[in-house]
């Protein structure tokens, strides 16, 4: 953990070399997710509800999903550039160091301009909670905390899979974006609006509905209390992800020069 802190400071210093650009990137990243908010906002200027969810309920959903994603991204986005790490043979360098491999990959690339997105996520989260009109109890607050935890774990698992695939293909697959950026993008609406099949897929194959739709129903007093515990079950998703990562490591053949 101390090592991670050191890497953190190092990256921060290097980015401060280009201050204007850094500020602009923060602003840009802020705007990217603000765009999504505008999209939702304007859709609801025209339509009052979608499949039984109102504007404020969708905002709550979006706020939570975005924060889940950002939490995962803040720590695990190092996996995102992993394709080039493998291709350039830099992974050898990581392997010979006497430190945990995952930790090194995590700290290899820390994107500070995502601060804009973190900020946006927090703003949306607070805004969503204020707007939602949910009567908050301790149990519900705890449910939100569990959602954030479970969500961050599931998204982080996606980043791990993304990196693990790089061991085999040597290149980040654009296809995987569906499960990371795509899930964030379409997680703005509760999964159920996309239809029954998508809901089933997101329940049993990739547990997005477990961290978003079902606990949300509980928050809105429409679901059973045990729905709130589903995000914990979703954490199990990390197990196959790490297994795949290990399989990939064993499969790794050095590349580059």
């Amino acid at each position, binding site marked *: 953990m101390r090592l991670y802190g050191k890497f953190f400071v190092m990256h921060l210093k290097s980015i401060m070399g*280009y201050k204007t650009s850094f500020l602009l990137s923060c602003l*840009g990243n802020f705007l990217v997710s603000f765009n999504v908010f505008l999209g939702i906002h*304007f859709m609801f200027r025209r*339509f009052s509800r979608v499949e039984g969810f109102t504007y404020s309920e969708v905002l709550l959903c979006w706020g939570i999903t975005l924060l889940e994603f950002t939490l995962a991204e803040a720590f695990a986005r190092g996996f995102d550039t992993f394709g080039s790490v493998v291709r350039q043979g830099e992974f050898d360098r990581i392997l010979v160091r006497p430190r945990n491999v995952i930790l090194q990959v995590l700290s290899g690339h820390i994107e500070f301009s995502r601060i804009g997105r973190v900020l946006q996520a927090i703003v949306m989260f607070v805004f969503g909670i204020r707007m939602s009109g949910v009567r908050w109890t301790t149990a519900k607050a705890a449910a939100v905390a569990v959602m954030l935890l479970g969500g961050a774990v599931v998204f982080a698992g996606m980043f791990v899979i993304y990196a693990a695939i790089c061991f085999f293909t040597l290149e980040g697959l654009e296809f995987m974006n569906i499960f990371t950026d795509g899930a964030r993008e379409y997680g703005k609406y509760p999964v159920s609006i*996309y239809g029954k099949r998508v809901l089933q897929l997101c329940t049993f194959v990739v547990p997005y509905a477990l961290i978003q739709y079902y606990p949300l129903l509980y928050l809105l007093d429409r679901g059973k209390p045990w729905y709130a515990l589903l995000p914990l079950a979703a954490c199990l998703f990390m197990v196959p992800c790490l297994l795949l990562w290990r399989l990939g490591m064993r499969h790794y053949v050095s590349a580059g020069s």
Partner: protein
Amino acid sequence: MKKYIAFFRLRFSMGLQYRAAALAGMATQFFWGTMEILMFRAFYRTDPASFPMTLQATCAYVWLQQAFLALFMAWLMDHDILDSIVVGNIAYELCRPINIYNMWFSRNLANRFSRAVLRCMPILILAVLLPAPWGLMLPASPLALVLFTLTMLLGVGVTVAFCMLIYMLSFFTISPTGLCTLAVSTVEFFSGAIIPLPFLPDGIREIFELLPFASMQNVPLRIYSGDLAGSAMYRAIVLQIFWLLLLIAMGKALDALAMKKITVQGG
């Protein structure tokens, strides 16, 4: 002119090499389009009366957008260019006896076209085969198809001309990433990449339609389905030509300015 066409051809055939990447990209875009349409379906089912376009036109918009993604997406910047400015390799390009604006312009056009050519057909074919309201309809009329092709070319021109402004500005800012993200997110929203412009409330929409961003994908994608027709359509085409010329003029001016005071970095 000949040299720029040569550059175009070089880049175009280079882009055609990446077939595996194109396959992965197509799958992604097909999925993306499906999700987008499922989302619009949810809104449509809840309240069909408030839908500003016909369902068919909306689906056509989404599929065409996905099929020709590479033509219009602002985030598809040429990172070689940006890197060459940061690293200093730009010096080699400046040694050549050609105009850098024109060269990059043709290079960018070629990049976008080669990507689009590789990817569009399978998506279009699959989309046409989908059942009635969800798939890609046939063009509203033969004239619509002709105008769609024409405005698509104009739209790509406007998009590239806009990207050129950013390349030129990076001569002044040294590290271009910030500028890029900022510009890209602006374009995304104003051009109708997030939600089609007709879905915006009246009052805001009229202003948006005058901006250069509306001249990118908004015009061709809506002409195809007949959503944009009649005098409004001709006004939009004139506006496209106007913005194309203005953006190119601005880019050229910046080009001249940058060449005068350029400092090459790196050693």
